[in-house]
């Protein structure tokens, strides 16, 4: 690389640069200037600093980049990628807002700096097709998130969860790296596109298959598909809720983006294999099909028995990851928009749900099914928003969650080319009935009139700051709007219109 290119790079990566600078400033200010203040003041100042940084990053994020992709696909800058980066920034923004009323740590500056660094990593991750860059940003995200998980001062589970997350994450990273090194050895390239074409030139060798399985397993950890999900329930429950929200949303969306990119571009349709009728052929498809099936079953069945909302969301996340993976089974480029639509709308709903959990916690209510009881009488608005999030997760139209699920199911059968994979659709629909049951429990509890004995004496009504309320309402409106008009999200994510109808006599 030479001089002018570096300048190019800086302009192209301006959002990431802004975030890093903000992280440093927040860290410094908190350590130096706000040292003597109370935690509440420090929280709100650091949060506002982070919000400013995130908004600035959004401001400098350009959707149209004239100069095209960065040097040798190290940094991708096409429309969908940039759009997705914007969404990740918005999610981080909501996370920061939810953190303001929290009183979980004395290390305020570090907390927000880590949130910003994790977001930086997510942005970098979203914008690369280079294995090296990919791994480095993956580690940046991972290390920030492990640390964030451990940030709760008063919960011993927090540390335990972080350790678990870190250990499993470390193994997953090692697997990914090993798989990547095999890929590099096989193809001699770090560029996914090049790897894809070179892999396609030969039938799938055992070594290539091993590489695929390893890489997919590592990415499966990121999106918490079973059996790589064991860290998720502990992390969701132990971590400070805003940190858990970031793990469940921004990290999840980018995880899906990565999975689609690596599998579709890096492995390509030539190496797909089969997951339906015999004869069986090795490839990434059977691996993903099995992961999806196991996740849907394990996630939904285990979620059924949870009473803690955060654990429930964690197991339901495992199930939802299973649905999402179904969309990846279709190697056609259109499926990418579908998977991303699913991931983004899922993330919006989960973000909202975590927002409600954070509100309950800051009001001193344990976020369990019992804690939600009577929410509608304490704050109709919050309960209404929670209802929308939960129903969207359950997949009730016209909310976005339904369309997300519908799109991925459509792609699970390859838009009709692989109807022998209908068993996956049937499994998804059958297990989503289980999901419907537990989501409906949350909705029902929130509407019940609180009786003496069921819920302890609680502040009535629930205190909600205007900013928090605005974010919740915006998320709920987003879930509704993206359901009523999926185009709004599908088109920026790169879905193309169906070819015009040619009605001829049959």
């Amino acid at each position, binding site marked *: 690389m030479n001089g002018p290119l570096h300048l190019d790079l800086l302009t192209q990566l301006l959002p990431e640069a802004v975030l890093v600078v903000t992280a440093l400033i927040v860290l410094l200010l908190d350590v130096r200037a706000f040292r003597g203040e109370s935690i509440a003041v420090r929280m709100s100042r650091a949060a506002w600093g982070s919000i400013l940084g995130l908004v600035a990053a959004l401001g400098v994020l350009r959707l149209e980049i004239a100069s095209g992709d960065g040097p040798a696909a190290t940094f991708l800058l096409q429309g969908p990628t940039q759009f997705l980066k914007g969404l990740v920034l918005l999610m981080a923004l909501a996370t920061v807002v939810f953190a303001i009323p929290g009183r979980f740590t004395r290390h305020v500056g570090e907390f927000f700096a880590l949130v910003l660094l994790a977001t930086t990593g997510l942005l970098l991750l979203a914008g690369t097709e280079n294995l090296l860059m990919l791994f480095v940003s993956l580690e940046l995200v991972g290390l920030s998130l492990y640390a964030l998980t451990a940030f709760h001062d008063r919960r011993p589970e927090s540390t335990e969860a972080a350790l678990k997350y870190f250990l499993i994450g470390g193994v997953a990273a090692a697997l990914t790296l090993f798989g990547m090194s095999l890929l590099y050895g096989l193809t001699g390239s770090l560029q996914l596109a090049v790897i894809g074409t070179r892999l396609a030139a030969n039938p799938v060798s055992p070594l290539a298959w091993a590489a695929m399985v390893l890489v997919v397993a590592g990415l499966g950890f990121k999106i918490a598909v079973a059996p790589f999900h064991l860290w998720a329930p502990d992390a969701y429950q132990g971590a400070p809720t805003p940190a858990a929200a970031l793990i469940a949303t921004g990290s999840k969306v980018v995880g899906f983006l990565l999975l689609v990119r690596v599998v579709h571009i890096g492995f390509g349709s030539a190496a797909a294999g089969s997951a339906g009728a015999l004869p069986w052929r090795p490839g990434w498809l059977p691996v993903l099909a099995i992961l999806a099936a196991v996740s849907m079953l394990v996630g939904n069945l285990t979620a059924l028995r949870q009473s803690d909302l955060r654990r429930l969301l964690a197991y339901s996340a495992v199930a939802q990851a299973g649905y999402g993976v179904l969309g990846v089974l279709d190697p056609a480029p259109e499926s990418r928009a579908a998977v991303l639509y699913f991931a983004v709308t899922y993330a919006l709903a989960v973000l909202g749900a975590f927002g409600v959990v954070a509100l309950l916690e800051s009001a001193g209510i344990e976020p369990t099914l019992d804690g939600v009881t009577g929410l509608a009488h304490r704050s109709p608005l919050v309960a209404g928003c929670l209802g929308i999030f939960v129903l969207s997760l359950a997949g009730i139209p016209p909310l976005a969650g339904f369309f997300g699920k519908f799109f991925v199911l459509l792609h699970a059968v390859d838009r009709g080319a692989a109807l022998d994979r209908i068993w996956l659709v049937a499994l998804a629909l059958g297990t989503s009935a289980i999901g419907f049951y537990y989501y409906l429990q949350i909705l029902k509890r929130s509407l019940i009139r609180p009786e003496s004995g069921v819920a302890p004496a609680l502040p009535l009504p629930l205190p909600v700051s205007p900013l928090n309320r605005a974010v919740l309402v915006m998320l709920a409106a987003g879930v509704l709007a993206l359901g009523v008009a999926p185009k709004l999200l599908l088109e920026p994510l790169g879905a193309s219109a169906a070819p015009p109808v040619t009605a001829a006599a*049959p």
Partner: protein
Amino acid sequence: MIAWPLYLSLFGALAMTLVRRPDSPLPRRLALGISLAGLAAILVAVIRQPPGAEPVTLLRWDWIPSLGASIHLAADGLSATLVLLTAVASVAGVLFSWNVRERPREFFALYLLLIGAMHGVFLSWDLLLFFVFYELAIVPKYLLIAFWGSTRREYAAMKLALYSFLSSAAVLAGIVVLAAGNVPRSLDLSLLAQFPVADRVQAWAFPLLFAGFAVLAGLWPFHTWAPTGHVAAPTAASMLLAGVIMKLGAYGCLRIALPLMPEGARDWRFVFGVLSVIGILWGALVALRQRDFKFVIGYSSVSHMGFVLLGLAAATPLALSGAVLQMVSHGVIAGLLFGVVGRMVYDRTHTRDLNELPNFRLDRTLPGATWIFILAGFASMGLPGFSGFIAEVHVLLGTWPVSGRFVALAGVGILLGVAYTLRTIHQAFFAGDGIPADRMPPPLAPLTLPEKLGAALLIASTLALGLYPRVLLDWIQPVLAGPHFVGLRRSLGL
């Protein structure tokens, strides 16, 4: 104007949330106004332009271009018939829930949302939009039962919701097959009917789709949600459940499953015919043995919906028109029966036990309800002059060419229907004859005006349909002979 009831109901549900004083009479007045306006709109619309074989597009917006889905509302004779039924049932439902005291604002908001969803199903001309409305109905009905219901309401509500969700999961699987495999890359119902999916796909996808819909229509052996749900639901909700929601399932079979997968329909007609006949007999036999007044009506609904399903399974044009007539007829009659049991009797006596009701001497203390129930019972038995008769005759005649045995067994079902209806009339209203005059129970509150109006509306509807079925048949039969059902007629060799 046919779509106005849909817009009005959805608008009403929204407007209801703006009502500031939740305990005022405003919510029920608003709900009545909306329902009446909807009924007026559909009446004006069909008088101005009688619906015909061709769907008339009412609204069309691009929605999800990558799937070929659009927000497309259209109405032909079938849609208009069922929208009219829904509008009548919605007015009657509001009148019969005039006495809802607990959170009326939320009650009527959910009620109108449910009505809107049903109108939406009947008017959708796009597969995905159809399903959206179809599934939109689940949550309001769950909440209505779980929060305003009676006997074991939470259990019944959850059972109903899970049955609905699972059955719509089967439907969704069928829709995925239709949407994924279709040639024109469009979800327009007319185009989908023109380009059916491959025969071997239909062979396994048809039962998914048909059974998924038919569960909501009370298909044996998946009918058990219906009686428990009907019993637990508040009066208006059970009127709608039995009256209209069960028809959503039947309508799905008729509009989606049969015309879009005609080859599958031919292959599976016998299986579903058998299940329907079992449903007719089973529902009637169980109804004969019930002690709970509402359970009798609940199981009679299963039996009557069996006729609808039998007509759909037979799939000849005559049987299909009978099925549609029976949908309307049962919608009106079941609404009336549930209105009498839930509102007139139960709200006054607080019991539905057929062994306790004689103590109330309802024939003396509540003569109005007695008369109305006798009329409704006659209609339900299928006495000539009421709508049930003409509908069941159509179904039986239409099924004859398919299987004489089905017809004979269904005929037995009609006889059983007479038996349980007469037994119930006697037990509930007249069995207290032996009680001596000095031990007469205290008089009950007389029927209120809304109750009388609601009952009159429903009785008038069933009589009108029974005496002059031409009105509806002229809307229905051209559709069945029209382009949407070409593939079905061809596959059946008609």
